[in-house]
């Protein structure tokens, strides 16, 4: 299992190979856990429930990963984020518990994730994001990390959806630009 590529592992998971799912867990749990932890505002109990649902999703999904779909880690986190958003929207809006805080830990993730993201580091994205305007950052946080839709954000900000869309367009473009500058 250890020498299998992610794509092969996911194919085995589709065929209900338990050891493949466990190997996937070992490779990516740190990333998935940290992602969900941020999404739930640091609620450890909810994080556990969502992580369980993420792996159930991987185990039962009919869709498989192909390298033509882009990087595996992006595919995996899209699945993860969708489970997060579904979970949060299930019975009401945002039933997140804000009581628990996440302690600030050093930001570096061990193998094998840094092999995949050779260029970008966590600090670089945080730095690039900090260069955006307040309203751009707020939009990204509400959309990406809080799971609100573009239409809902437009209502909250009392703006037309078109304005929110073009702000998102600008925000992502600038983010990309800042990331490229830092790569040099």
């Amino acid at each position, binding site marked *: 299992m250890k020498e299998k590529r992610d794509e092969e592992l996911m194919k085995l998971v589709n065929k209900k190979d*338990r050891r493949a*799912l466990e190997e996937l*867990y070992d490779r990516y*749990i*740190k990333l998935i*856990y*940290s*992602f969900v*932890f*941020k999404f739930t505002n640091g609620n*450890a109990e909810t994080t*556990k429930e969502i*992580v*369980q649902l993420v*792996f*159930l999703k991987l*185990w*039962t999904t009919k869709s498989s990963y192909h390298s033509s779909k*882009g990087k595996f880690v992006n595919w995996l986190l*899209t699945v993860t*984020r969708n489970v997060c958003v579904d979970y949060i*929207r299930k019975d*009401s*809006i*945002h039933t*997140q518990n*804000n*009581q628990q*805080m996440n302690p*600030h*830990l*050093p930001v570096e993730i061990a193998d094998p994730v840094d092999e995949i*993201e050779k260029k*970008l*580091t*966590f600090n670089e*994205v*945080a730095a*690039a*994001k*900090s260069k955006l305007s*307040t309203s751009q*950052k*707020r939009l990204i*946080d*509400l959309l990406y990390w*809080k799971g609100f839709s*573009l*239409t*809902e954000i437009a*209502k*909250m900000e009392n703006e037309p959806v*078109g304005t929110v*869309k073009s702000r*998102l*367009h600008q925000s*992502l473009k600038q*983010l*990309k630009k800042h*990331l490229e500058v830092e790569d040099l």
Partner: protein
Amino acid sequence: MGRECENLLSFIADELNDNNKRKFEKHLQHCTECAKEYEIMTDAWHSLYLDIEEQKVPESLKAEVMDFVFIEDEKDRKLKSSFNINEWFSQLYRQFSPIAAALIVALMVLTIALSFSNMQLRNEVKESGQENIVPIEVLSTLSLQAADQTEGNINTGGSAVILQQGEAKSLVVQVRDLPRLEGSEVYQVWLLKNGKRKNAGIFKPDESGAGILTYELAQNLQFDQIGITVEPDQYSTEPRGKKIVGSS
């Protein structure tokens, strides 16, 4: 830019229904402008996850996750295989007279037909872009300002929005230019009604001093003011620190 191009951002945020999603995927193959933008946008979108902090994964989690997955999957399969039509018919005819059995079969067919048309109805609702998500309405918006305008934090401020979705109500607080926190300090949001305070949760702003908090409001909860204080740690049940931001 054609009309279809306007769906680019909704496509990236994964907010199109299946029908429009397929349409846009086709559009992407023909529109070079969108294809170019799409590549830039998705790159940036996929880099957003890197804005996380590494967490320590509990040792016990692996067993809990694997148990959950395999038990849920087993349950699901049992449920599916338990409804074996042939077995069901033979049991039915053993237990009832032929006429009663025929009646039960007829009822069963009707039930299946009804639930099928119901399913179709729901699919149509989904296709038309409504999804089965209850729409969110903005009930009210409060503006937030620095509590002490003299301290050079005149830019500090933000807004609080109360949202209603079906039966559920929630509060979204957004503040910018908050003073930097030290050590274990956190910002804490309080809801005020007739001088009584209710804790609505804590948050930490990012490096630029911007912070967002979402809080689920109990149905009967009323308040007319919001205050945000800086607290020495996350365990305050009453404000111990200074008020930094408040609604006017």
